[in-house]
Structures are given as C-alpha cells and as structure tokens.
C-alpha cells in the first residue's frame, strides 16, 4: 500500500441512492472505520460530505486538471444523456454530469460502477432519459465511456451490479484495489470473487430445489424457481453467501430473486412468475442442457423424500 492517503471521489448520477444506503449498513468494520483502516481520504460524497459547494467546485477543477490526484472514482446511478444527447436532465455546476464522469474517469486510477444503474443502466436505463451504464448498455459493451476505456491503472471499469449492491462487495472491492490485490473479472467486468457464484448458491431452500418441491403460491415452503419467477439459478451474486444486513436474503424469506445483478435487469417479463413449458422453466440454469435437465428434474421429483413433500424442513 502506498504511504499516502488513497483519494476517493463519489459521484451520484441517475439513481435512487440505495447503494449508498446499503454501504452505510456494513459492519466490522463499519463505513467510518473502513475508510480509516484503508487510509482513504474521502474527497467527496454527496450524502456525507459537508464541504461548501465553492470548495467542492474547486476540488472538481483540481481533479479535472490533475492537480489533485484521483485514485478511486465511484459512480452511483446511471449516466443520463437526455434529452437529445445533451445530458441536461442531470447537471452539476450547470454542466452535464455525464461530462464530469468522462473528465474524472480519464484522471482516475480506478473507476468503480456501484450498482446496476451505474454498471448497465438498470431501471434508469428503461426510462426516457437516455441513460446508460459507465461501460455497458445492458449486455452491450461500450456504454458511456466506450469499450476501449481504461483507467490510469490500465483497468476497465469495475462493475459491481446489484439493486442495490451489497455494501460488503463495495468495501471488498475498495480494499482489493487499494492493496493492489488481483481482482479477476468476468465478461461483464464483474469481480469473480463475488459474481463467480449464483444467487441460488447458499439459499436455504436448496434441498427443496434439489428434489423439485416447488412453491405454487407465496408462503409455501419450497423452491421458487419453477413457478414464482425466481432468478436465483440465473443470476450471479453473493446474496446467499454474504447475508443482507448480516441476517438473511430475499430467497431465504420467500421473496423470489429478481435477477437485479443481471445486465438486462429489469427484464421485461412480469416478476413473480416463471415462464413455463409443460411445468418446466423456459430458461434453465446457465450451461445446462434442457433435455438432461428435464430428465434430472423428473427423477429428482420422484426421489423427493416425504419430509420435503410435506414441507417439514424449515428454510
């Protein structure tokens, strides 16, 4: 680690602030402790900082000119380009925030897209405001900064999708980046450390899934993949490894996963419903052959023990 502070600037664009709320929820270390431990100098965060706008504007000018070194740039929310490509739907200091993103990204050692909106456009990307992710538009590489973009360190934008992303993932990414630890990424620039597993993995309903004991309506104990629209086996993320608020996850309490880490979130099909062919999901888990899956699930259902059929197992 370098001997000087690591400077961090946090920019909020078109989003809801939920990723910041999620980050405020981390513990051991909590947010203030984590910044201390990593020796981060938080130059600016719109929800937390108290500097005057005059100071803030001067800081931004120093960052843009390179006079103030920028080690880490965190972008939260989609980059809004409307109307008509002007970016004037979302401005700071009277200029489009999108221009600020471009200028700061050029100077930054590392650029982190925090949350699905910043990474891929997310819900904001479905509106009329011409919003996009930092280096992707949904599944298409390029996004706002372009496919060729590399930060000063040589890294592409690091995408931390999730609506919101778990604060621990943001904290872990910052720790890795600041310590110079390797952080291998998948094709959507998501760190394998957290997005190398499906949301399904670690779900307490896994045994129900295993034997195809499925929920047909809310509040039954069972797996929600076949009928209730759960994207757990179709979305990458650590929701069932790093528990939410240290306690639980949506799928554990019976809320289907909505696939919010996916580049195409929110998918156009109705939530809470699985598209089916003859009672089997139209989309089977990634990389699985459909015919084999049908045969496996048929046998699994036949082998289901009575305690699961009777929903005796807790979840």
């Amino acid at each position, binding site marked *: 680690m370098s001997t000087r502070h690591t400077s961090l600037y946090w920019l909020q664009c078109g989003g809801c602030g939920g990723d910041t709320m999620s980050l405020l929820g981390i513990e051991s270390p909590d947010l203030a402790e984590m910044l201390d431990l990593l020796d981060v100098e938080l130059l600016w965060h719109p929800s937390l900082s108290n500097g*005057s706008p*005059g100071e*803030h504007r001067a800081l931004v000018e120093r960052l843009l000119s390179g006079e103030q070194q920028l080690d880490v740039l965190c972008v939260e929310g989609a980059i809004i380009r409307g109307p008509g490509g002007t970016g004037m739907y979302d401005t700071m200091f009277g200029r489009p925030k999108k221009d600020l993103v471009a200028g700061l990204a050029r100077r930054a050692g590392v650029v982190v897209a925090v949350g699905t909106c910043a990474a891929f456009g997310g819900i904001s990307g479905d509106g009329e405001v011409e919003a996009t992710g930092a280096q992707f538009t949904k599944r298409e590489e390029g996004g706002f900064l372009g496919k060729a973009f590399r930060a000063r360190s040589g890294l592409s934008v690091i995408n931390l999708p999730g*609506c919101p992303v778990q604060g621990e993932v943001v904290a872990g990414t910052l720790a890795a980046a600041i310590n110079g630890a390797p952080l291998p990424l998948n094709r959507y620039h998501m760190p394998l450390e957290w997005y190398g597993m499906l949301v399904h993995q670690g779900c307490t309903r896994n045994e129900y899934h295993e034997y195809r004991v499925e929920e047909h*309506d*809310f509040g039954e104990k069972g797996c929600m993949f076949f009928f209730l629209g759960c994207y757990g086996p179709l979305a990458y993320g650590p929701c069932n490894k790093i528990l939410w608020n240290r306690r639980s996850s*949506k799928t554990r309490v019976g*809320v289907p996963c909505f696939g919010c880490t996916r580049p195409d979130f929110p998918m156009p099909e*109705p*939530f809470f419903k699985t598209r089916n062919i003859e009672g089997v999901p139209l989309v089977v888990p990634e990389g699985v052959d459909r015919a084999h899956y049908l045969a496996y699930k048929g046998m699994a259902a036949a082998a289901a023990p009575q305690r699961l059929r009777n929903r005796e197992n807790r979840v």
Partner: protein
Amino acid sequence: MAERMTLNVPLNRVEGDLELRVELESGVVADAWSSGTMYRGFERLLVGRGALDGLVITPRICGICTTSHLTAAALALDMVAGVQPPPDAVRIRNVALMAEHIQSDVRHGVLMFMPDFTNPAYRAQPLYEEAVRRYRPLKGEAAIEVIKETKRVLEIVAILGGQWPHSSYMVPGGIVSVPGTSDLLQCRQLLQRYRGWYERRILGCTVERWLEVHTASDLAAWLDEREAHRSSELGFYLRFARAIGLHKLGRGHGHFLSYGSLELPEGTQVRGRKGGDTLVPAGFARGTQVDGFEQEQIAEHVAHSWYVDYAGGKHPFEGETRPYATGQESKKYSWAKAPRYDGLPAETGPLAEMVIAGHPLFTDLVARDGPNVFVRELARLARPTELIPAMEAWLAETTGDGKFYVSPGEVVEGTGFGLTQAGRGALGHWVKIENQKIAHYQIITPTAWNASPRDSDGVRGPWEEALIGTQVKDVANPVELGHVVRSFDACLVCTVHAASRGRSLGEATF
C-alpha cells in the same frame, strides 16, 4: 430603493435533483421557486408491465423510503384484488415500515440537519465547538454512533423481509415470509436495544418520560430537569436551535396533510391517539384546526410543470404524465407536479402527523408560533417515541409460524390506491390493472407535496411559501435557506449560485 437580487440554488440528492430560485429584497426572501430538475419517467415505465411489478420497481424510486413505496404498492394491490391480509401480516408490514422510520428520523437529524450547526456562520456561537465535536461528517461523536446504531435496527427488516433496502416481501394478501417465534424474538431484542440507545443518546430520557411533555413550558422544564436531558442530541438541538432562532424561520401556509398510516390489526391492544383504525390518523389541518381526509380531494396541477397542459387539477386516477420540456421559455419550471388538497397546498411529514393526531406538545407549539423550522425538525427527532411502543406490542402479539398470507389468486383487473405515511410524509400510489397488466400508475411522493411548484392559480408550494420572509444575512453563505428546506427532510446537499443583475457573486453553501 431596496436592493433586489436573485439566488439560484441547485440542490441535489436522492429523491431527484432540486433547484431553488429566490428573489431577495434588502436581504429578505420576497419570492421563491422550487424546481424538480430531474425526470426519471417511472410511471410511464410501469405501464404495460405485469400486475405485481410495482412491488419490485417502485421501492427502487428511493433508496431511503423503499419500504414506504412497497407498502403503498401492496396496499393498492390489496384493493385491486379485494383482499384483506390476515392480522399478523398487517402487524409485520407495520413493524418493518416503522423500523425504516425510526432509523430515518435519527439519520436525518444527526447526519443531514445538524451538520448545518457546524457551518462557519455559527463560529461565534458558544455551542459551536460542541456542535463540531458532535456532527462533523464521519468524524463527529454523534455521527459515528448514528451510523453504527441505525443500521442495526434495519436488521429487523432483513429478518422479516430478506433485506434493506429494496425488498418486495409485501404482496396482495399479506407478506411472503413466515417469521418463526425465534425470528420475532430477535426482532424484539433488536428493537429493545435500539430503544435503549435512542433513549440514552438521542432523547436523554425514557420514551415514557418524554410522552409526559405536553406543553411548551413542560418542554422548558424538561430541558432544565437533568443534565442527561441537556446533553442528549435532542437537548443540544433545543439549546442550539433556540440560540440561532430556528423557531422564527420557515413558517409557510400552515396547512397540514396526513393520509393516515399503520392499520390497526384485528384484536390488537394498540390504540391511536384519536381512536380510529390506524395508529397515525389521516386528516387535513389548517393550523391546529383538524378536519377529516377524503382521497377524492387530491388533485395534481401542471400549469407550472413540464407536462402537457390541462385545465385545473386532475385526480391521480385521471392524471397523466406526458413530459413537455419547454425549458425556461414559459411559466413552467419544474418536473414536479403541484398536488393540492381541496385546492390547497399542504405540508406533510412528522409535524403534520403530530398536529393531525392532536399530540398535545406539538399542537401547543404550533398554536404559539405557527409551523417553523424548529418544530418541524423536533417532530422528526421525537417521532420514534410515537412508534416504538406500538412496534413492541405488535411484535409481541404476532404468532410465530402463523398466518401471514391469504391468496387473492391471479390479479387480473381492477382499480386501487395505496396511501401511507413515508418517513417524509404522505405517499400515494394509484393503480389500474387490465388483463394482468398495469394500465395506469400514478405516484405522489411526500416531496411532491412539500417541494411543489405553483398551481393553476399561481399559489406557491409549501416550501416556496416557507422561504418567504427569510432573512439571508450573508448571500455568500445563506445557511438560513438550507435550514428551511432541510426542515422538510429534503435530504439535500445544497449548492448556491448567487447572481445579481446577471453578475456572478460567487459560490456559497448552506
């Protein structure tokens, strides 16, 4: 001749970006305009989606009021489906929403409002050093503790609903989760722990002692009674706010609105202050004169908003959201519509709830000084005292592994609305479902009420009106304007660009 000057005040933060323009005459605000400068198009994005999709999409409008949007969306779908959730589902829905409120109220006070006390404008105040010690961002003693403690009470929402923010565990007919006895016990312990901390650090006394404070003179006596009262965050707030005259700032129209919230489940021991079927009563008040509430009386105007014009106001079931950006060329100046109740603007939030519920202390304070910055923020800091005892009762009354859901079957078509109180005040969703799809979705947020632009008759919105008469001592640092806007829980970091006769006067901060 009085010197005239215009201040442009761009505000950014979570609920969409906002900008204020104020006209000063001899340093006093003579007129004000509040502009929502961001359009995200949520309502149009929902049309054509699946019937239940509002439960997933609308919580993501706001990372702070996420459970409030979920509540409104679920209540609207309960009505569409014609289903009454079982009593224990009502209890758990309520408890999760209240957990969101009691953390948000404290975070707003200590992390958003009180940092203004560290503004250099107050350097000469005897309490200034102490304010810096308490409220400096990420470093102040109170700021650090609030970050530590408020996140823990949100664990209640995670136990009951999977995660905070942005879960979707409320559905028409109840909730999807089936909390067990030990889940409920853990929630009770988390709440008990939070109550202990809130009493010690924020209040300086027990909730029960606070509830004995009924009048302005009781409040003065309470402050002098013990050192613990004076040194609590609330006690410090009382001393600092009085010293800088917050009770003289931000009066406004004096109209209050509450949709009512937190349905009393069948068989509960909990009672609202006014009886009725909700813990937080619905009502509309002129000053302390409280009347009933009829949702039919709500209408939205767009005469000064960037939407295609229509005459007068439209009820949200008839409302439309058709963007029409005219820029600065016409009288339109905001992406926010102008909601009106019975044709009148109204402020909403914790103070409105207190006045409409007939809370003796807040009724007395408003009767004496009218609404103002001081009493608005005090109501927010004290609101957990109205909620915590009911949360405890509802958690204790709930049967673990009991009945939390009644299936309404497929939600095919119908019309419904969901009205609740978010942390910042009245929140409503109006929904029409046709062929299992959303045909119409209109949302009115609390900030739409508070930050409303002018209506068809040219009448100002609540915080526009509240800014009138504010004396700005230093145009380079108009901290007073920040107090007024923040007292509505606008939750904004504010930039001020001051200009006089086209010349820039420089930058300043609240």
